[in-house]
């Protein structure tokens, strides 16, 4: 395997876990898929639709998100996602874990 490919795979693995956390953190207020995608990208977290939508579905099937189809401001129907109470509990724990991990890693890497 080329070094570049190894790097790509490792980045993919690294991002996979972080993305769930990022998505959960941005859904305290309801958003539809595309607006979430843009919100994430504006904050520097680029994500493909092909990754985001299945991820949203998975988080919903795990009970961490809720969603429903709605028409807001006379636009076309969109599916709105928002974090569930269970999702909030999980997010709080994840945040804690994340800050510990981030601290540890930045110390290790400095």
């Amino acid at each position, binding site marked *: 395997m080329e070094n570049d490919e190894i790097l790509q795979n490792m980045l993919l693995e690294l991002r996979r876990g972080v993305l769930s956390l990022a998505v959960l953190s941005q859904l305290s207020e309801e958003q*539809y*898929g*595309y*607006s979430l995608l843009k919100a994430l990208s504006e904050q520097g977290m680029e994500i493909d*639709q*092909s*990754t985001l*939508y*299945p991820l949203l*579905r998975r988080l919903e099937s795990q009970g961490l998100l809720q969603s429903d*189809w709605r028409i807001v401001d006379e636009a*076309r*129907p*969109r*599916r709105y996602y928002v974090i569930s109470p269970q999702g909030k509990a999980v997010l709080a724990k994840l945040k804690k874990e994340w800050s510990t991990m981030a601290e540890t890693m930045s110390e290790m890497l400095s």
Partner: protein
Amino acid sequence: MNLIDKYIAEVGKHLPRKNRADIEAEIRSTLEDMLEERTQGKGPADEATVMALLKEYGAPREVAATYKPHPYLIGPRMFPMFEMILRIVFAVVIGASFIGLGVNLSKVGLSGPEFASTVGEWFTGLLGGLIAAFGNIVLVFAILERTKVVDEFEKEIKDWDPKELQAEPDPDQIKRADAIATIIFTVLGLVVLNLYPNLFVIGFSNDGNWSTIPILTDVFFRFLPWINVMGLIQIAFNVFLLGQRDWKPITRILDIMIDLAGMVLAIIILRTPGVFAISSESLRALGITEAADTLARLFSVVPTIIIVIVVIATSVEVIKNLIQLLNVRAKSPYPVIK
């Protein structure tokens, strides 16, 4: 139908039926959002913009694949077991095939056109056998992967206790060697029945000419699908046992049911008239005249003898299982650690 409709229909073809409509609606809503952003609300988008958007969104098959929960046929948890069984079965198929080759070569000799054609047939038979075996194993494991069995495997691994290493042999422990032997012999039986049915012959020398008569008739081979199903169930069950540490009531009951089903099938086959080709006519055709009737009459009791043997063997297995089953139930659910 515009391009977006066509694109969504194409994605839908590869989506799981259950969520298809919902996923399609979501993709449509996203595509329309993206399009609106690109045209900045200045009327409908031109074809080039739509094409660029779809190109960016990805190939329909790829997009659909991201929604599929089960992208693998045999998962990482079952794979080591799959590999092990594959090795065993391939070894058996190759072994059986060499035995078949040896038997055939002993008849045709080691030279001449018949030798070449025998080797040729052997090779294509072996190739076909390996491919068929591979297909069947994949099938069995793909089914196991999609049942609760895979969770049972996980549980066994999670429940592993170092104390097992010093435990004394107990009657509930599953003997891996038994399960492996059953798998090997079942595979062997299926391979021979399916690929080398012509091995079931009685051969004898008649005035210096080697002649053979087949033992089994087309009537028998009409049962082959049933025998195959029974064999596959037996293999699947033993593969499952390999992943288990102890016999549990449910596995014992399954074992009893499979034993009984096998016995019933055997009895049905053996009691069907005309499954064996040995009759006074077929013997006469081979030049045995005087003894034909006697031999045929002798042979006619063979099915009955086999039935008796099968019934006795099955009963022994079933009774052994029943005794253990009743013991298991009487035992406390909390084992005493010695």
